[in-house]
């Protein structure tokens, strides 16, 4: 077995008594006290996640924006500097390599934040496409730590700690100083709540973590992060998104800008029709889990649950499920097979929980 990687805050998590689990090759805190309490802290107040396992790539040079725009399906070129843009990263055949956030820091400088388990795959993929562009592509994942401060109190708690923190809009990014350190602060997150993600050196992030603990910010683990993102229906790579599906299959058509002149996968995605659709299902009884079978009213298998849990906010079972479009029931009657028993599931259009982000 290969040794698990540790974030710069690993010792802090252990000291706090966090339950540690392997995740994408990293030894990560899954929960500190209670998943429920951590979810509630983020929805109502404030919580902090160590997400230093995620990857940071930097594009620098005249073509930085152009290269980013070519790599991903969403529109990077037309977004102003200081904006963050969520996008899938696709292959020529339209399948998804990863989903990521592109941060347009300033002219000629772009930060791309990718999923921890895909760092190598993404970097190799980008490296292979990079030669015609006048910019550098550097993987700085090992030099950066990352905290996600999430919840309605985030701005009030973070502002006094930073040299300068204007009230930037949601999905914006800003470079500032934290003590002697320069940090990148983005108003992004994976919980649906207002909040910030702070990229910095290991020393900077450790110092920030200590400050946040002094302010009694609730440390939150991966389990609550997963419940929070699922309550607001954000996809997770490896679940809703995989190497086998295209963005349309995962309900991400809004991120595919076919009006762009060119990007990897465009010619395929222009002709591609979705084979699947991602639906949101909620259950009054029973908890849906990944890979459980989804059935129509007559008991025919029509798809599978890609993510499922018990919502802390609604107190009900919630699921995202990949349904074959051809088999989608017109009467919208769904059942989920839980231990060989059909549990009725209700289709909903909006997310299970409405986050409070601005």
């Amino acid at each position, binding site marked *: 077995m290969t040794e698990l990687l540790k974030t710069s805050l690993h010792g802090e998590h252990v000291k706090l008594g966090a339950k540690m689990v392997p995740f994408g090759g990293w030894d990560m805190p*899954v*929960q500190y006290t*209670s*998943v*429920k309490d951590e979810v509630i802290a983020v929805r109502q107040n404030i919580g902090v996640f160590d997400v230093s396992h995620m990857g940071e790539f930097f594009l620098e040079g005249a073509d930085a924006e152009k290269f980013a725009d070519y790599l991903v399906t969403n529109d990077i070129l037309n977004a102003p500097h200081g904006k963050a843009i969520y996008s899938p990263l696709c292959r020529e055949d339209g399948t998804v390599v990863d989903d990521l956030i592109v941060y347009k820091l300033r002219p000629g400088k772009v930060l791309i934040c990718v999923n921890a388990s895909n760092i190598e795959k993404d970097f190799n993929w980008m490296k292979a496409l990079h030669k015609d562009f006048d910019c550098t592509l550097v993987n700085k994942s090992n030099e950066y730590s990352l905290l996600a401060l999430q919840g309605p109190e985030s701005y009030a708690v973070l502002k006094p700690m930073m040299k300068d923190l204007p009230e930037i809009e949601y999905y914006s990014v800003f470079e500032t100083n934290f003590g002697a350190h320069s940090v990148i602060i983005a108003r992004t997150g994976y919980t649906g709540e207002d909040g910030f993600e702070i990229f910095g050196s290991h020393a900077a992030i450790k110092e920030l973590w200590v400050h946040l603990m002094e302010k009694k910010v609730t440390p939150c683990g991966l*389990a609550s992060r*997963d*419940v929070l993102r699922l309550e607001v229906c954000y996809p997770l790579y490896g679940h809703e998104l995989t190497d086998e599906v295209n963005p349309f299959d995962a309900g991400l058509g809004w991120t595919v800008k076919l009006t762009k002149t060119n990007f990897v996968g465009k010619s395929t995605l222009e002709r591609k029709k979705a084979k699947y659709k991602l639906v949101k299902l909620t259950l009054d009884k*029973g*908890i849906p*889990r990944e890979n459980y079978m989804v059935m129509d009213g007559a008991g025919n298998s029509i798809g599978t649950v890609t993510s499922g*849990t*018990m919502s*802390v906010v609604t107190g009900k079972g919630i699921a995202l499920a990949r349904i074959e479009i051809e088999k989608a029931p017109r009467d919208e009657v769904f059942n989920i097979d839980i*231990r060989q028993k059909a549990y009725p599931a209700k289709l909903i259009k909006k997310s299970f929980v409405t986050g409070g982000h601005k």
Partner: protein
Amino acid sequence: MSTNIPANLKYTKEHEWALVEGDTVTVGITDFAQSALGDIVFLEVPDVGSELKFGNTFGVVESIKSVSDLYAPVSGEVVAKNSDLEGSPEKINSDAYGSWLIKVKIKNTEEINNLLTAQQYQDFCNSSH
């Protein structure tokens, strides 16, 4: 990890506890189990009249993030089910030994010898961590 292991109970390696009173065995999950699971949100146990077989699964307990099988500590017929837990399975988190799941009328009292004593269970928990 919590090490609350009452001496008067018997245990399984799957972290169930059993209170043996004559031919009736009351079954629950241990404090160690509830602590490992975290917030318990769903419980599925058989109805009164169901037959359990020693070592087989008889239900599930679910936390927010996981599903765990329950294993029968003895064979026999379910004679009672704790309806208090139906709407509030989280009671197991606050009081694992006060939150019994089912009572079983034991078929073969010799099966009790398969169960661990408090000391043996304590050693088992220590060795698996």
